[in-house]
């Protein structure tokens, strides 16, 4: 475990100033195009389980909702999907059983879709965002996208930022027949254009569920309490601290060494 100064040392230290807390209303938009049916890579002894991207996404949604509700019972979730077009599934709920029921209904359609447009998603987000704001809630979109060669189109006014959008991008390894890097860049641009607060975008081409789950957990971060994506310093390792060998350190010295070790 190395020490030394890194990016995070330029970021201001974490502080929790007094402010009102806004419970979140989070609209998930799940890409259920054909590529969501691709298999995840299953490592370990349980190799016989066939898990599609959509299966992993469904599990990740339950994980997210449960963790968020454990933090605060007032957060709420709504679900929508992106097939050849955008479609709402269910309005907001903070009941984990309802969440589980809705998530269970998400399935991959057989329809082959070329272009995909998320203007409707933004329109719904804008409208719902106003309702959430009236209730003292913060509205957020989490887009989970799976296509390696097609990025979503949208028409949205440049300065209109009435909600925040995070993106999780699951894709194939880059090759001659796809362009995940271009798709990633387009998704990032879209998120930056529409987002009112700090938005995060994560990608994985490895197909490992634990990477997906880890990304989803970082997205648990409340947008108003976030740092910039470059300054993210978690998850931090929770492992035995390496103390300096030889000599008696004072309490103060020991502490100084420890905090150096954790700057990364």
């Amino acid at each position, binding site marked *: 475990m190395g020490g030394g100064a890194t990016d995070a040392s330029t970021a201001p230290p974490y502080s929790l100033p007094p*402010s009102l807390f806004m419970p979140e209303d989070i609209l998930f938009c799940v890409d259920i195009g054909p590529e969501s049916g691709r298999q995840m890579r299953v490592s370990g002894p349980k190799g016989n389980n066939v898990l599609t991207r959509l299966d992993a996404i469904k599990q990740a949604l339950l994980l997210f909702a449960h963790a968020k509700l454990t*933090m605060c019972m007032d957060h709420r979730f709504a679900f929508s999907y992106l097939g050849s077009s955008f479609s709402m599934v269910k309005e907001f709920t903070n009941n984990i059983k309802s969440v589980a029921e809705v998530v269970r209904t998400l399935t991959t359609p057989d329809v082959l879709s070329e272009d995909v447009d998320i203007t409707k998603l933004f329109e719904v987000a804008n409208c719902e965002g106003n309702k959430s704001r009236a209730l003292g809630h913060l509205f957020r979109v989490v887009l989970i996208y799976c296509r390696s060669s097609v990025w979503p189109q949208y028409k949205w006014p440049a300065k209109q930022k009435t909600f925040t959008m995070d993106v999780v991008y699951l894709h194939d390894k880059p090759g001659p027949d796809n362009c995940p890097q271009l798709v990633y860049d387009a998704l990032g641009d879209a998120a930056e254009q529409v987002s009112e607060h700090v938005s995060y975008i994560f990608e994985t081409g490895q197909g490992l569920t634990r990477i997906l789950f*880890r990304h989803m957990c970082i997205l648990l971060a409340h947008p108003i309490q976030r*740092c910039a994506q470059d300054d993210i310093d978690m998850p931090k*390792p929770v492992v035995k601290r390496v103390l300096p060998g030889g000599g008696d350190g004072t309490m103060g010295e020991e*502490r100084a060494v420890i905090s150096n070790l954790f700057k990364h």
Partner: protein
Amino acid sequence: MAPHPPLPPPIAAQLNHLLAYSPLPFKVEQIWSGCRNGRYSDRFTLLIPFCLDYIKWDVIFSAYHPSAVPDFIFSAEDVDFNPLLEAHEKEAGANGLAVASPLVDWNYKDPSRLLNLVCHLRDSYVSYQKKKAEQVDDERMRFEISTVLARKGTEIFVASFPDRDEVKFTIPIPDLEFNKLVTPCPWKQEQKIYLQASFVVAKGYTTTAPVPRLKLVSTQDLKPFLNVDDIKLIPWSDEMCMLTYLSDLEVKLNDQVVEAVAGVAKRRRFIEALSPFFGRPLEADPVFCRRASVLGISGVFTFLVHFSIPLQFPTKQPTLKLESVQHFNLNGLPIVSSPINDYPWSPRWDNTEMAERIYDFLVDECLNFKKYCSEKIPATQ
């Protein structure tokens, strides 16, 4: 509430306005129709907050005449509560014409009229109970009642029985001004603490002064900031009277409030001290600083740690809960540990040391938890 046909729009407007704009927390217990199989409901039971309890009044409209002023049916115990007669007697003296104006002035098109009327009747009820209290046949009680009634906002409730009267006071503690103490103020309604004092006054000759049963009650939303159940009340002694007791109580409560404000700051600093060890918390309570959640990793095992910080922090240590990111139960929900609060702790440590010690504890504990999760359900990789 049992399902019921809808209220006609003018009546619904009156009830909705009352529930939305009342300064007190009125509730509706049930709504029903005056006719069997009626198309519309036109009656409801209102729960009127009084003396930290509720009294029930039935409000009787008519679906056939929705513009008419409603009738009220008061509680069976309040047989001699007659607000119209009182108004009649009061006004008759003044101008010879007896009217209770909110009833005569009724205008169904103005949705605020019902709220106005109910508040008016409630004020009459407060006076009615005060008069009942003044008739309690005990010189000592009458003294207590007269001194306490002078305090603004006091309510009295008297229940009479053949052998005794039960007199209950609810006295708001003044000048606590919670809504100004916490900035920004998270409370939409004013937060208050009340002293509830219940006396049982035996009828007939008695030498002993009644000893009250005392209780502190607060508005519900105050609990994350200050829990009155934790405050030990000064015991009542023979030389006391309500006024002196209240005055000592006010001093004590002011001290508690100062401590509560300091408590928020202490908890805030503790949450901030978590970050060098655990990374930036995913989410923390920025108002009362009662909770924070962080994401940790040990090898390839990722997990959440939820901190729940008690009001008695740092005397009492935070409770921890671990949640796996990779292990799910049969319902597909992540596995969570039971609450942990028996790890090494001292209130004398500074915040950094507290965070450090929790970190060290979790190094082994997260591996125990991982083992527990693996044994419970196979991990999905």
